[in-house]
């Protein structure tokens, strides 16, 4: 009998302690971020899908189609094609396809590329209507980016504004990158 009473009392007490914790929460700051209205800063090493990097010296992609990234990729997402352009010392990339549907964002490709010709983009709003939306032509993407940045540019010459624009997308990355 006495034990039963003791249990009821201690049981009640445990519930009250729990209530106290809950009530205490009312006076704590709110931690929820109201997503579409507010966004959090992207982490400096955020691994988005990959994108080609422009060479500031030439205004062309740094990539010279060595295909190391293609071989490093565990999921066969990358197809690179390159050609040796007239007068150039190295090969240069002519097509760079990424099948994002298969990509696991592992980063092996970025690590494999010894010249830093690819990096993680900071796009994360990637919803699409069809599977084809995710088969990306990164070479074209770069060209479109270039056009958007400086419409007068036609022949792929160095356009400082364009590089600035591409870097602007990465702004907080370059500022806070840990490497």
């Amino acid at each position: 009998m006495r034990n039963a009473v003791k249990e009821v009392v201690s049981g009640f007490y445990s519930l009250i302690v729990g209530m106290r914790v809950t009530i205490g929460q009312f006076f704590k700051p709110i931690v929820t971020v109201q997503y579409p209205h507010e966004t959090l800063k992207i982490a400096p090493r955020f691994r988005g899908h990959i994108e080609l990097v422009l060479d500031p010296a030439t205004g062309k992609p740094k990539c010279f189609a060595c295909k190391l990234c293609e071989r490093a990729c565990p999921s066969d997402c990358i197809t690179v094609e390159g050609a040796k352009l007239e007068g150039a010392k190295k090969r240069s990339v002519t097509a760079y396809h990424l099948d994002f549907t298969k990509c696991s964002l592992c980063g092996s490709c970025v690590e494999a590329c010894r010249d830093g010709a690819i990096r993680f983009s900071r796009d994360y709003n990637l919803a699409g209507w069809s599977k084809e939306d995710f088969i990306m032509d990164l070479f074209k993407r770069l060209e479109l980016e270039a056009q958007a940045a400086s419409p007068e540019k036609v022949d792929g010459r160095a356009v400082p504004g364009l590089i600035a624009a591409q870097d602007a997308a990465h702004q907080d990355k370059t500022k806070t990158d840990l490497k």
Partner: protein
Amino acid sequence: MTTQETIVSNLADVPRSNGGGVETFVLNVGPQHPATHGVLRVKMTMDGEYVLRAEPVCGYIHRMHEKMGENRTYAQFLPNTSRIDYLSAMTYTHAWAGVVERAAKIQPPPRAEYVRVITSELNRISSHLVWWGAFLLDLGGFTPLLYAFDDREMILDLLERITGARLTYCYYRIGGLYNDVDEEFIEGTRKFVHHMRPRLKMYRELVTENIIFRKRLIDIGPISQEMCRKYGATGPVIRGSGIPYDVRKAEPYSAYPEFDFEIPHFREGDSMARYLVRMEEMAQSLRIIEQALDKLPSGPVMAEKVPRVLKLPAGDYCYAVEAARGRFMVRIVSDNKEIAYRAKLRTPCLSNLSLFEEASQGMLLPDALALMGSLDLVIPDIDR
């Protein structure tokens, strides 16, 4: 849920532990049931509210990870390891990197080993927090999940900062780490340790001492030591039955021998004991993290001379780690090629699940689900 008049499974050997009704029916729990946290199907032969036989049906999320390990290079398999048990991605990657390092005789630098310990323990806490929230959700308490995810968010932010991912980190590399950690991470981790200790006390007040919760777990789903041995259960399940088996102590790996920590274990063997083991483990992980941060050596995080094309000498290699759910072991048989001849992944959840059939016999259905929750199953880990 389906009910059937006639029984498909062989009932002849089903013990009638809780007699009474003659009529039995088959109840499907899952494959899409909130209590199983994934696609596990349990075919339960019921006598009223009592479980006569619970038969787990696996394979709904089988992805052939072992086979994948046998058709790609060792480095290429690393991202897969984060996806076997997505809640302890770090520890699983550790096992794979560890076995290759052991075979190729690569010694990761001390800083890398320390960071591996720190991140693995952070990962263990975040995994236990998910379990804690989800387990209480199974038992009918919703709010704890929000508390748990609030704290887990801090860990994910810390790990995202250094790895770039929030769940499937793939942070370790053969011979070291993908990237070094920075001051901000170290400071943040210290802050987190200070933040988490009072939170654990709060969890105790809010849940562990709650009378309703205690009544729901104490003496429910006892698992004997013998049963643990028979099915090869590891992790909090075996420690909840009073066997202090932990790979970090039993087969010390990485930098673990350098830290002072205990292996919490409880003799009772019921669901409450398994619960307490995990709660206590979080405190121990905080202890390890604190020590590792204090002693963190400087230096490189990648071993020198990791060959670009890695061929393991012919042989048979094993490496085991203590994941959040128990012993995870990788075994590689190599025939001196770039690709493993055989890659075997020994995952803890499969063994922990296999004792469910025996342990749940004769239990009430809600108690059986409490038992299943206390096993902390991750289904992709079972199916691989």
